[in-house]
């Protein structure tokens, strides 16, 4: 294995951003094609690991409640619909600030904790609205970008889109990669592209969406993960939520193992964001177990773990009320976003 030198970073100001406190930016590194070419992923073994994990780890009672609250803190509360309006986004932001009913938090002894979601994720057009609605909360606004979800608009426009969102106050940029580069194995093109996006982000956090449902094989997922991290991604993210198949545990495990490899090579901690399809509390627990088992305790925090979801929060709220009252809850008992 060649000794790998991190690429120097000019983004020293980024560390001051609230979302990344205590967590240095990923400067990226030169593309190491030997690493990419040598990657092995045994799909059956990956599936076996994730299939047995729910039987190996569980949390009960207070522990379950705490883990679910932690999951809320990691949610990127998202709205990415064609019919989004300013008011819709403001409602979402209000929910982001107060995701759980006050009485439930009090009952759990969390009244004095600032329990809010990890970020609010919107299209560029809604960034100013969200920034304004979240002012003073410390909740970052994430903007999906670069011709989301297909990523097929002209490269120049995609870079400009990032710059515009950052200028509008987005602290995190969720870019989509050009799947075609991954599908034909042009890793240099992918590295160059993400590198350019990273530069355009400036102080904003770069989350790279691999759109794993489009990549065909877990090996491609692993290779694309490695290339994006080498290009300076702060987070690698599974999906846009618009592919036929979005976040799955096997895909997630594959990406987590690449994060681990990258850390072994560079010392750098990269975050992970599964998105799409995680809508039940019991599902999110399995993702948390996977994070904790494969990467360790730091990856349970929003600095390194985000969950792209819209309906998950509602299910967690119902579970938390059940925990507090002992009675099964209903959706209408919890405020809408």
């Amino acid at each position, binding site marked *: 294995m060649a000794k790998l030198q991190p690429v120097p970073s000019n983004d020293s100001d980024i560390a001051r951003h609230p979302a990344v406190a205590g967590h240095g930016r990923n400067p990226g590194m030169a593309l190491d094609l030997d690493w990419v070419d040598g990657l092995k992923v045994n799909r059956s073994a990956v599936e076996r690991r994730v299939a047995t994990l729910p039987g190996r780890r569980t949390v009960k009672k207070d522990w379950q409640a705490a883990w679910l*609250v932690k999951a809320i803190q990691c949610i990127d509360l998202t709205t990415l619909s064609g019919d989004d309006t300013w008011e819709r986004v403001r409602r979402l932001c209000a929910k982001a600030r107060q995701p759980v009913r006050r009485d439930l938090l009090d009952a759990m002894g969390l009244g004095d904790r600032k329990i809010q979601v990890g970020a609010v994720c919107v299209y560029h057009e809604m960034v100013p609205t969200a920034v304004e609605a979240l002012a003073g909360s410390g909740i970052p606004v994430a903007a999906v970008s670069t011709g989301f979800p297909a990523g097929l608009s002209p490269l120049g426009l995609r870079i400009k889109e990032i710059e515009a969102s950052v200028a509008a106050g987005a602290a995190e940029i969720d870019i989509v990669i050009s799947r075609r580069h991954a599908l034909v194995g042009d890793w240099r093109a992918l590295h160059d592209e993400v590198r350019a996006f990273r530069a355009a982000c400036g102080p904003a956090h770069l989350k790279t969406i691999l759109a794993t449902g489009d990549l065909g094989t877990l090996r491609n997922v692993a290779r694309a993960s490695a290339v994006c991290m080498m290009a300076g991604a702060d987070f690698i993210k599974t999906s846009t939520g618009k592919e036929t198949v979005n976040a799955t545990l096997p895909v997630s495990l594959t990406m987590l193992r690449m994060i681990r490899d990258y850390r072994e090579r560079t010392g750098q901690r990269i975050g992970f964001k599964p998105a799409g399809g995680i809508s039940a509390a019991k599902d999110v627990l399995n993702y948390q177990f996977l994070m904790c088992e494969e990467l360790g305790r730091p990856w349970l925090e929003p600095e390194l773990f985000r969950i792209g979801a819209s309906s998950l929060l509602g299910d967690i709220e119902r579970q938390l009320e059940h925990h507090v009252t002992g009675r099964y809850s209903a959706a209408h008992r919890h405020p809408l976003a």
Partner: protein
Amino acid sequence: MNIAAILDSMDYGPAPESAGVAEAWLARHDQQFRLFIGGKWVKPSTGKSFATVNPASGKTLAQIALAGEGDVDAAVTAARKALPGWTRLGGHGRARVLYALARMVQRHARLLAVVETLDNGKPIRETRDIDLPLVARHFYHHAGWAQLRDAEFPGHRPLGVVGQIVPWNFPLLMLAWKVAPALAAGNTVVLKPAEDTSLSALLFAELAAEAGLPAGALNIVTGAGEVGETIVRHAGIDKIAFTGSTEVGRSIRAATAGSGKKLTLELGGKSPFIVFDDADLDAAVEGAVDSIWFNQGQVCCAGSRLLVHEGTAERLYVKLKTRMDTLRMGDPLDKCTDIGAVVSPRQRQRIESLVERGVAEGATLWRSETPPPGTGCYYPPTLLTGVSPAAEVAQVEIFGPVLAAMTFRTPEEAVTLANNSRYGLAACVWTENVNLALDVAPKLKAGTVWINCANQFDAACGFGGYRESGFGREGGREGMYEYLAPDLPAYAPPKPRALRLKAPPAAIDRTAKLHVGGKQARPDSGYSRLVPGGEVGEGNRKDIRNAVEAARKADAWTKATAHNRAQVLYYLAENLSARADEFVRRLCQVAGSSKAEAKREVETSLARLFTWGAWADKFDGQVHNPPLRGVALAMPEALGVIGAICPDDMPLLSFVSIWAPALAMGNRVVAVPSQRCPLPATDFYQVIDTSDVPPGALAIVTGERRGLAETLAAHGDVDAVWCLAGDAEAARRVEAASAADLKRSWVDHGRARDWRDPRQGEGTEFLRQATQVKNVWIPYGE
């Protein structure tokens, strides 16, 4: 701890499985168990009991009855009594009962799992997610075999009463592996659970009776080794099936020698876990968790020898150490426990001292940082690196969570190291290269090869060992045969006719030597033996040694294509046919056959060679579809070198009938022809020499049958001995001598067969005896 504190620590917290229902069951029995005989709870004749202890807490769970000889007797009598009724039920009737048992296991799955965990100390995850589903699956699968038995196993009968002795590492699963096929085939059972873990068997028997298993079909006698010994020696038992240590297996082989009892042994292992440089290392690490850190490493097929490519070793070790630290050791009833308690303080002591010796012999020790619980019998996950193949920890079965690691340079070296063991139960191969995986798998001496997976089991895939890991298979079609016997008619060979020993001198003297390594060789002894029609060499130990050595070298025959082997067998027939008249004359002269009889014997011998030539390229094995995305290839493999002891009756036909199927399947054979009438066999040398049989593939050593048989059976480089000589004493000696290295034996216990009858003289039984099934599990998917 409050929620706010947990939110900071993000601990898993306790997640205990309730023992309430299991404790209520123990209470219903007043924590006092009797024997289960004839469908009833019976007081032991000894009046004694012993404690069964939860190894995780050290607390006594219950008192278990200590069975005496009279109790074993009563159990055998009850089983014998139940046999006619169980037979009368028919295949479908038995299928209904086995189906009911499968459903019963599912209905009571959690209770059975909790009882098992309490008694054994293994994590509830394993009993709940692995053991119990496999138990249910085994009964379902064998309900199917019961239904199909008459159609799929024609000409076979059940054995009768079967004695089964199961170990403590998978108490209920091993019960299922034993009981389901025995009952499906139509046998009745006397089963002894391990003394440390009797409870699940007792619970199973109780529930099975409620589910409709007829009284006496399954009897449970509890106790320690002496009870097992009583079962092994009991004259009323027709078969012993044992899973446990190689040591005990050896003594069972010795004790049952000559008794006529059928025997299957599933014994120890030191299975290699081979990681090539192109493996998915994270997958391999999880495989190690499923292999050596499964059930605290107390698994006969645990991948306990890590063989890793030298250039990959350091990276793999780092990953293994990281993973070891995330294994949680503790209360087996906690749902987050990965490593439970080892079964007993005695076992822990053994692990400890072996690891100490490993370190003393130069290994570097790594232990997981998982803190062990304060009380109970625990041993942490352990990795020993830099182990040399000569070290004790690389050779002996530790039966604990200890992985002994060493490196290799090339695939060939990996195979050599993997096979450098007296055992041969299982092997794991980790590589993303399908060419490498499928090249290596057949070269490994192991009953099961898992490619890119570990410890996968399925009722349809036979499981069992090579070498000192035992013989016989459990599961699948091959497992059913272990509980059936071919229903052969009784046959008494005619009394040998009085013959002049010396024949009139030939025009030119012909002296029959031995046939070793493809050429005729003078006997080491320098003596000749007077036989009807002339003299033959008096073969001795050294001749056997030479023949085996030549046979060992002749592995080209085993590697030859099936088509090639078929051609040679047909060619043998062709050349025998050319000399048919000569053999007819010889049989008339030395066996006292009439001309018509002799002609028929030669003709039948020709036909037999055709039969085995025909089979050579047709005994293909199976592709199983176990419940995963992938296949398990059941490959019948040649055993290697087979010693074949032939009878006096029909000295040409029986001789041909015995070695030909062995050769057809790719074995090399050292044949001991008829002691009384060896000249037809020595005449056969010239047929062999003209038929392209490679040197060493078929050796013939004449002489005193019993002594030569015993030498072959005791020879460490002979893989199996067939003794079909109609000689009970020879059979006994073969079984007794084979105990030394637990080689496979196939003996007739003195019951002769009529070699002219195709049902007795040929048939697939010969093919099964000439092969062992290797199951290669190949999960796939990109």
